[in-house]
């Protein structure tokens, strides 16, 4: 059909932003699945409806996760995408690559798939976008061969992610990529073999800026912070002032807890009022730095809205030291997974379970003492359990 008229999607090659249609067309020249995908796209544009069917369970030997099964609802029209599964390939923590590794990956995908990919999916995997049921296993074998493995899908731990952290960021209070790599290796079994009520996501950000959006998207959120006072280089502060930087308006007035004071000479901090939001540091990176007694705040429960409404992760452990081999966090994770596994209903994320049966029960099971840092404020209602 794309032959007979100017397809709607052609319009999407115009304009300055790089075009995904151009990318599909590049592959369509030599890959029949990519070519059929163009046809599917055109049909969707005309009918304003998806043409993929409800998934099916496909996978590779020994794993239950890592592949999203996908079938066309018009296989007669588009035989080359009749089955068009994606493979989720676990990225190296921090998303650093050698070109060597990437090129090998491209070669595998040239051979076994559509040649289309996502760098990356929203969770953080390399998404190999579309292959046949027949190719799944061979493709997987080839991936293993070049040192890559699958990520998660289904009721398992999903591919954990980290911000760039200390690799290139002066704000990092924890080694986010290292923690995430370590946890990923530790939980290989749980990532590959779904056995939980639903998905479970782990993300780590080096500081409260949260550059992997962990608070919003991770069931288990690790965020770097510090216990002592942030560091101030008063000379560097003066430099900012001299350069005409408006310390009062841009920095001091925006501190959420009024912890800063600037008298034109010295930037004073009340460390007990600083909630480590990162704002002042963000604005004056040459003068301010996180404190030295560093570790992480562990939060729990972030997720998208299905079906109770979205959750943001909330504070579970205000401060935890984060040194390899990360024993404490691993133990906590195992405890959480076991408890959720035991108590959760099908398709119930850990936040929903905690809400349903009460945070107090969860805390007891974890052996964690309730502290006010876990809540913005105590309850308003008088409907209190005393069991």
């Amino acid at each position, binding site marked *: 059909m794309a032959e007979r008229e100017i397809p*709607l999607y052609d319009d*999407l090659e115009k304009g300055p*932003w*790089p075009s*995904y249609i151009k990318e599909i067309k590049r592959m369509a020249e030599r890959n029949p699945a990519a070519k059929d995908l163009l046809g599917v*796209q055109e049909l969707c*544009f005309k*009918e304003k*409806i998806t043409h*993929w069917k409800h998934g099916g369970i496909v996978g590779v030997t020994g794993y239950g996760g890592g592949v999203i099964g996908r079938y066309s609802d018009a296989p007669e029209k588009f035989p080359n995408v009749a089955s068009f599964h*994606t493979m989720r390939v676990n990225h*190296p*923590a*921090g*998303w*650093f*690559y*050698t*070109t*060597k*590794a*990437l090129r090998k990956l*491209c070669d595998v*995908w040239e051979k076994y798939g559509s040649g*289309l*990919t996502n*760098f990356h999916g*929203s969770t953080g995997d390399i998404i190999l*976008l*579309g292959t046949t049921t027949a190719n799944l296993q061979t493709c997987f*074998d080839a991936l293993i061969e070049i040192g890559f*493995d699958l990520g998660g899908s289904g009721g398992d731990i999903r591919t954990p992610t980290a*911000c760039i952290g*200390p*690799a*290139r960021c*002066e704000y990092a209070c924890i080694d986010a990529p290292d923690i995430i*790599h370590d946890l990923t290796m530790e939980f290989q079994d749980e990532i*590959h073999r779904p056995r939980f009520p639903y998905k479970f996501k782990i993300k780590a950000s080096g500081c409260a*800026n949260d*550059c992997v*959006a962990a*608070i919003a*998207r991770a069931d288990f959120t690790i965020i770097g912070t510090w216990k002592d006072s942030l560091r101030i280089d008063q000379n560097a502060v003066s430099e900012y002032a001299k350069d005409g930087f408006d310390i009062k308006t841009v920095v001091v007035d925006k501190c*959420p*807890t009024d912890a800063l004071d600037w008298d034109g000479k010295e930037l004073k901090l009340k460390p007990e009022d600083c909630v480590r939001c990162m704002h002042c540091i963000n604005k004056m*990176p040459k003068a301010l730095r996180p404190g030295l007694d560093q570790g992480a705040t562990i939060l729990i*429960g972030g997720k*998208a*809205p*299905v*079906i109770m409404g*979205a959750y*943001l992760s*909330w504070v579970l452990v205000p401060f935890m030291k984060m040194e390899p081999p990360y024993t404490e966090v691993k133990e906590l994770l195992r405890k959480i997974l076991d408890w959720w596994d035991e108590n959760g209903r099908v398709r119930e994320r850990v936040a929903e379970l905690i809400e349903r049966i009460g945070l107090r029960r969860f805390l007891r099971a974890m052996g964690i003492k309730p502290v*006010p840092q*876990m809540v*913005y*404020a*105590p309850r308003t209602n008088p409907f209190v359990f005393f069991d």
Partner: protein
Amino acid sequence: MVKTDIGPPNYKLMLPEVITENYGKWKYHEILRPGVLRHVSETGDEVYTVRAGSPKLVSIDFVRDICDIADKYCDGHLRFTSRYNIEFMTPDKDKVEPIIEAVKKLGLPVGGTGNSISNIVHTQGWVHCHSAATDASPLVKAIMDELYDHFTNMKLPAKLRIAIACCINMCGAVHCSDLAVVGVHTKVPKVDHENLPKWCEIPTTMASCPTGAIRRHPDPTIKSVTIIEERCMYCANCFTVCPALPIADSEGDGVAIYAGGKVSNARRPPMFSRLIVPYLPNNPPRWPEMVAVIKKVVDIYAKNARQGERVGEWIERVGWEKFFQLTEIPFTEQHIDDYTVRSAVPGTFRTTTQFRW
């Protein structure tokens, strides 16, 4: 037997030398110009980063293209950001310009740093998902063509993060984005009485509906269900559980727009995005009605917000009533929350790293 469970490659083996050398030793950074960062280490080393936009859905040829650049200027290393952008790093200042040139030659924009609109976090849409109530990639393309300059310069009051999800599963961080577009259904699922008994369990199907809209078919000879129309808010949860309840609809499907969310704990704790436009029709290939709203909100935000204010912080200061006045977006019944299934409990949890010891 093949090996399994080998896990991802060790990130340490993927790092450029200057990163390995200065790991954990970075002292400060500056943004030299949109898309170009300079990080300075305590050792005195520096690393320059050039950030380039990417369409996320790319071909292996594309990957090979960027590898070529990395091989030429970055000792064979590159990275991606948490928002699909590509980062080329080099300790050598003189390579910055050539990298930029090479990137531009590929047709990729340089930018996305500081007070810009970075890449749009988005999803599969009609390209790959059966759940999609709208597409994703073409919406991104349409918006970013329109807002291109905001990627390549840094003239906004603050960072502005956009996300797009093709259904309310919201793969991504739509629920906490400065601006977000979400695919929505607005027609009740059509019951496929023929296949339902074969494909689905009736009790599970009924239980899947959060508002209790699904009932057993009144005729006991029909082993199927009916849906109470006025109880349905088109969440598609029943369809996820039972494929015999297709909800996608050429006419009813479209997009909703949300605004004011954020993730970082800087200044204000993270915030959810909030509904600003309940429904606009699917209008491929470029969804002009949707793009017009996004553009308008960005323009009005740019004009009215104070320096340093994210979209949500701006709205919080001036009030939602002012937001609707300024944007001339009609305020409707749909804006008012009436989803009683959600309990108030999570609202009391401290969903931020902000607290005192």
